């Protein structure tokens, strides 16, 4: 389905701009008209991370006249394996500022607008309203559902992409013309089922594969060229090296864009997506220790069984001394219940404290009444007890 251009053309390009964009101008489908539309376009990228990096760089190079960056985070060394808009000297800087500098270096004719803030229910409308199109490169379900609902309620199109390990998905969600994110995924997965990239990892270059699809779709929508991914989900498998398109229809029962929509304003997205299961939230009450307390327990020679519930690859990177590995999945499924201690006190930890809370809930349900988990996980241990260990 082809659509009319989203943006009116700017009145003219300068001589410098004509020189710069000549390889676009000689494509008949883009030409002067399309390039002037890009110049007039205002695009917001939510997130300057894995997807945001290539997306922002190519949006800038393509000559999108106004580019907004919504990002509150700072650059961490573990970002640099994939977040190519930032460099070594940017570590510790706000990502929005680092990304803005890179954009200005790529293309001085772009107006960069920095939103160095957490996008939330109170500011999302005000920020989105300033743009023609949104590119979603966030890293968590709560923000993804908020972006979707805000875009639907404002009637804005957005280009969505998500990545995990070797797999990526991308689509254009625009309730006025086709389905929205909730038509595809009405609800997020239960907390803990789908790991984030911080927990499960991501092949760095995957960001470029999906980010470039997002920018391609953005340019098509802005200039009215080709058939955008409205009503289609692109599924990329880097291991098989396949791209497949799956048709997505508007769900007549969609809670936000259907005829009987129940979501008419923004909701509590943290609550909707849940960071931990109800069982885990209950299990940790009175059964949570800090990394410092764990250090004291170890020094006192307390009879504990310290169990790391992460995956083997993570255990290999860094671990708390004296721990043994039983991945959370094996505890939750019941497969490893026989490996849990019967008398000694079990102390669970993971990377940051979510998976260990789930393991704790399962262990308590299996009868380990005195089991505890470590708040903040191995990252808390590194932070509070042994900063010489590597974070990841």
């Amino acid at each position, binding site marked *: 389905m082809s659509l009319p251009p989203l943006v009116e053309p700017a009145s003219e390009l300068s001589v410098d701009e004509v020189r710069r964009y000549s390889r676009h101008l000689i494509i008949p489908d883009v030409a002067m008209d399309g390039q002037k539309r890009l110049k007039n376009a205002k695009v917001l990228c939510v997130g300057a991370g894995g997807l945001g990096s290539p997306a922002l760089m190519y949006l800038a190079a393509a000559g999108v006249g106004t580019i907004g960056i919504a990002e509150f985070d700072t650059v961490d060394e573990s970002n640099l394996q994939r977040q190519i808009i930032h460099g070594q000297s940017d570590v510790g800087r706000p990502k929005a500022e680092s990304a803005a500098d890179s954009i200005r270096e790529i293309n001085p004719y772009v107006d960069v607008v920095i939103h160095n803030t957490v996008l939330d229910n109170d500011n999302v409308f005000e920020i989105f309203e300033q743009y023609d199109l949104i590119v979603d490169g966030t890293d968590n379900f709560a923000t993804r559902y908020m972006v979707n609902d805000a875009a639907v309620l404002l009637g804005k199109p957005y280009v969505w*992409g998500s990545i995990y390990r070797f797999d990526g998905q991308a689509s254009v969600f625009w309730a006025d013309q086709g389905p929205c994110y909730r038509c595809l995924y009405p609800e997020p997965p239960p907390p803990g089922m789908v790991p984030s990239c911080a927990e499960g990892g991501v092949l760095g270059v995957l960001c470029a594969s999906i980010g470039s699809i997002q920018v391609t779709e953005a340019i098509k929508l802005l200039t009215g060229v080709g058939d955008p991914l409205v009503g289609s989900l692109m599924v990329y498998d880097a291991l098989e090296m396949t791209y497949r398109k799956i048709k997505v229809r508007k769900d007549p029962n969609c809670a936000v864009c259907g005829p009987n929509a129940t979501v008419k304003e923004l909701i509590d997205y943290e609550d909707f997506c849940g960071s931990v299961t109800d069982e885990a939230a209950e299990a940790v009450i009175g059964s949570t220790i800090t990394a410092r307390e764990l250090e004291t327990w170890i020094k006192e020679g307390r009879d504990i069984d310290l169990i790391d519930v992460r995956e083997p690859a993570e255990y290999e990177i860094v671990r708390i001394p004296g721990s043994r590995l039983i991945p959370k999945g094996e505890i939750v499924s019941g497969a490893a219940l026989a490996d849990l201690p019967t008398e000694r006190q079990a102390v669970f930890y993971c990377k940051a404290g979510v998976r260990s809370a789930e393991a704790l809930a399962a262990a308590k349900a299996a009868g380990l009444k005195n089991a505890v988990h470590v708040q903040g996980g191995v990252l808390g241990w590194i932070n509070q007890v042994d900063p010489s260990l590597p974070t990841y």
Partner: protein
Amino acid sequence: MKIELNGEAREGVATITEAVAAVTDARRGIAVALNGEVVPRSEWDRPLADGDAVEVLTATQGG
């Protein structure tokens, strides 16, 4: 009746709901494509036909 489930031949699966259950315990955060087209959750009880290709997709949050 033979269907294809996530690229592999499969028998004894009569509906989309059953196909999902064969792949994952989760009911949320899942999308199902039947012959290349996503089927809304409300229609998961639809019976499958011989030769149908079912694909269960999982939402990912990474960016």
